[in-house]
């Protein structure tokens, strides 16, 4: 079977070699964890512990306040020191600070929940919800919400995202090599919840060993298909991935469920398996710590709430001067101004650049080369949206379909004039959405 793909996209250098062959190591237990109460898209959780309380591993410390939300659990056992606002990778948020006693005593609720053969779909969905499982690819959309489509949307396909198209990151790659069974178990659990018969696992062909590993683990499953994807960014973008696997186009402004598809990350599937098999909620994940600014790049299994500084120290610390710390990959990650922030459920990578790598070239005039039009995976004309945005003509930006931008950053990457294309398109999107809210 040939490689599947979408139209458009760019080929940034992979930079995956430093960590792709390193087995995932368990990070040393943190002494203190700072667990944000908002690690997902949707309403932040309400804290249900207070300073002085004793907590155990897997104990719920934040209760979801609405349907689109996801509970938060303690990743260590110990004493709650404070519940206060702290800096997190996505800005300031309420956090629970817990001092670990180093014993990692399990909470009474952390017991096996049964087997997907005997559990009903509704029960599985409830386990997923209670385990605080969210999309681990980066956005952190609560998984149980994805698994609750409105009745008018009949889901017939699940796509598992193992593309890992972001340069540098190898967390999903390692997971597919080291734990393919859990990924498949979690996928089957989701298939049962949605009563779906067909599933794809999409993996970029720069990870032939991961494709082989998943295929081997799958050998007797006819309804789950491992598909090799052309290595191209953003192959792992939801709509592009759906197109590559099923040739269905998610309508503009719509969700994948509109074409009968639900997409989940491979790491999310493994977390679901863990929640069902052991009862352990989502309190740790694999994270790739890499970049020229790190002495010993590694893939680490880290507990939610561990300080980034501590994680970097476990990778030999910084190598020389550093210029930029990015949570996530270089194409869509968020740059930070300090390393005193906790890791979250969606921290797939910590990337550290040297000052030379971090310095961005000066933008020049647009020469209308059309590269951005040629490569835009959403088929937009970034140069025009950006030009109108920079002149505060947001209505014209909207006419050029600014809201269809998936913010993959391919245009800014490819631009020979080094123009801030995505950056200005983001401004336009924000203005357009703000204006729409106002007129409503």
């Amino acid at each position: 079977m040939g490689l599947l793909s979408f139209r458009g996209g760019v080929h940034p250098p992979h930079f995956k070699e430093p960590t792709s062959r390193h087995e995932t190591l368990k990070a040393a237990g943190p002494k203190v964890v700072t667990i944000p109460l908002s690690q997902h898209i949707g309403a932040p959780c309400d804290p249900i512990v207070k300073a002085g309380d004793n907590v155990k591993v897997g104990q719920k410390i934040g209760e979801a306040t609405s349907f689109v939300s996801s509970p938060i659990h303690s990743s260590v056992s110990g004493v709650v020191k404070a519940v206060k606002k702290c800096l997190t990778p996505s800005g300031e948020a309420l956090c629970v600070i817990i001092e670990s006693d180093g014993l990692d005593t399990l909470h009474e609720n952390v017991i096996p929940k049964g087997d997907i053969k005997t559990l009903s779909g509704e029960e599985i969905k409830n386990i997923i919800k209670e385990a605080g499982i969210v999309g681990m690819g980066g956005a952190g959309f609560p998984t149980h919400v994805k698994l609750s489509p409105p009745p008018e949307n009949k889901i017939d396909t699940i796509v598992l995202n193992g593309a890992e198209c972001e340069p540098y990151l190898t967390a999903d790659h390692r997971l597919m090599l080291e734990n393919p069974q859990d990924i498949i178990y979690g996928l089957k659990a989701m298939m049962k919840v949605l009563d779906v018969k067909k599933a794809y696992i999409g993996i970029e062909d720069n990870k032939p060993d991961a494709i082989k590993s998943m295929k081997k683990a799958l050998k007797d499953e006819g309804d789950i298909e491992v598909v090799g994807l052309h290595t191209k960014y953003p192959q792992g973008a939801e709509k592009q991935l759906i197109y590559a696997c099923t040739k269905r186009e998610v309508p503009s402004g719509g969700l994948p469920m509109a074409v009968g598809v639900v997409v989940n990350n491979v790491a999310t599937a493994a977390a679901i398996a863990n929640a069902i098999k052991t009862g352990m909620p989502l309190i740790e994940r694999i994270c790739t710590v890499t970049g020229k600014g790190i002495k010993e790049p590694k893939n680490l299994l880290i507990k939610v709430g561990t300080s980034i500084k501590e994680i970097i120290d476990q990778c030999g610390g910084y190598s020389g001067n550093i210029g930029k710390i990015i949570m996530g990959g270089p194409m869509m990650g968020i740059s930070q101004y300090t390393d005193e922030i906790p890791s979250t459920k969606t921290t797939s990578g910590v990337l550290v650049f040297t000052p030379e790598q971090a310095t961005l070239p000066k933008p020049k005039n647009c020469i209308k080369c059309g590269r951005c039009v040629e490569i835009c995976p959403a088929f937009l004309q970034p140069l025009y949206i950006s030009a109108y945005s920079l002149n505060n003509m947001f209505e014209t930006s909207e006419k050029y379909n600014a809201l269809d931008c998936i913010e993959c950053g391919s245009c800014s990457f490819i631009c020979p004039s080094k123009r801030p294309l995505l950056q200005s398109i983001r401004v336009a999107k924000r203005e357009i959405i703000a204006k729409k809210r106002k007129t409503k």
Partner: protein
Amino acid sequence: MNNKLIVSSSPHIRSNETISSVMRDVVIALLPATLAGIYYFRMGAVRVILFAVLAAIITEAGIQKLRKQEVSINDWSAILTGLLLAFNLPASAPWWMPVVGSVFAIAVVKQMFGGLGHNFMNPALAARAMLLASWPVEMTSWINPGSDVVSTATPLVMFGGAEAPSLFTLFIGNHGGCIGETSALALILGGIYLVYRGVITPRVPVIYISTVAVLTFLMGGFDPYFMIYQVLAGGLMIGAIYMATDYVSSPVTPKGQIIFALGCGVITSIIRLYGGYPEGVSYSILLMNVVSPLIDKYTSPRVFGEVK
């Protein structure tokens, strides 16, 4: 961690390609044609090329100094404009002609409209059109290749006559004409390099040249010899590969580029076969340059997932 961190919005990496690398690639692609021009037209070609390029660089730097802007002559774009203008002049042109042309191209067509990226026409072609209108005699005193200056006509004028060059002569460029336009071979070599380097897509040159081929075949009495002659002679190769593909003055949408190339081909054929001039490449590209923004406007691509 004692130094300050840089914070910016994603993406955090950029491709290696820059304006200078793109422009430099085009200049490199023009090297075979430059060498061919110098080989065929000797010192006359060297003189015209030198004056055109130097005048372009000095004008660009001077205006940017005057306007207190960053001098950007190291982005190769002024060099490229000078070189392309020289390619469009006869080797017999007096020294001041390339100078006047380059100053006009850079000062009026490029800088007056805002510099790089803002010219609405190809500067080199606009300058050529200006020179042709102002000094028609000097602009059309063609000489034969070789060391002794023998005046001649261009192949497009000579077609059918006893002195008309053979197709092979046309292909290698051993005939009268502008400095850079004669050798189809050298120009195609450069074009292949540009496609290989990803600087241009074959879309515009292939459609442009094919359109001229088809139309001259149909309108020229179904004569394949006439068709190949038309494709190889005159400025079609240099126009289609290097001028019509100019980023700034051509459409950005793929569909727009197809319309642009078709338009160039149609206008070229009509001017050549029915117009008052023997050559129509430069005017056809200039005309299509002017409608490029309009073409872009009406060829917006279908957005991914757009509901029809």
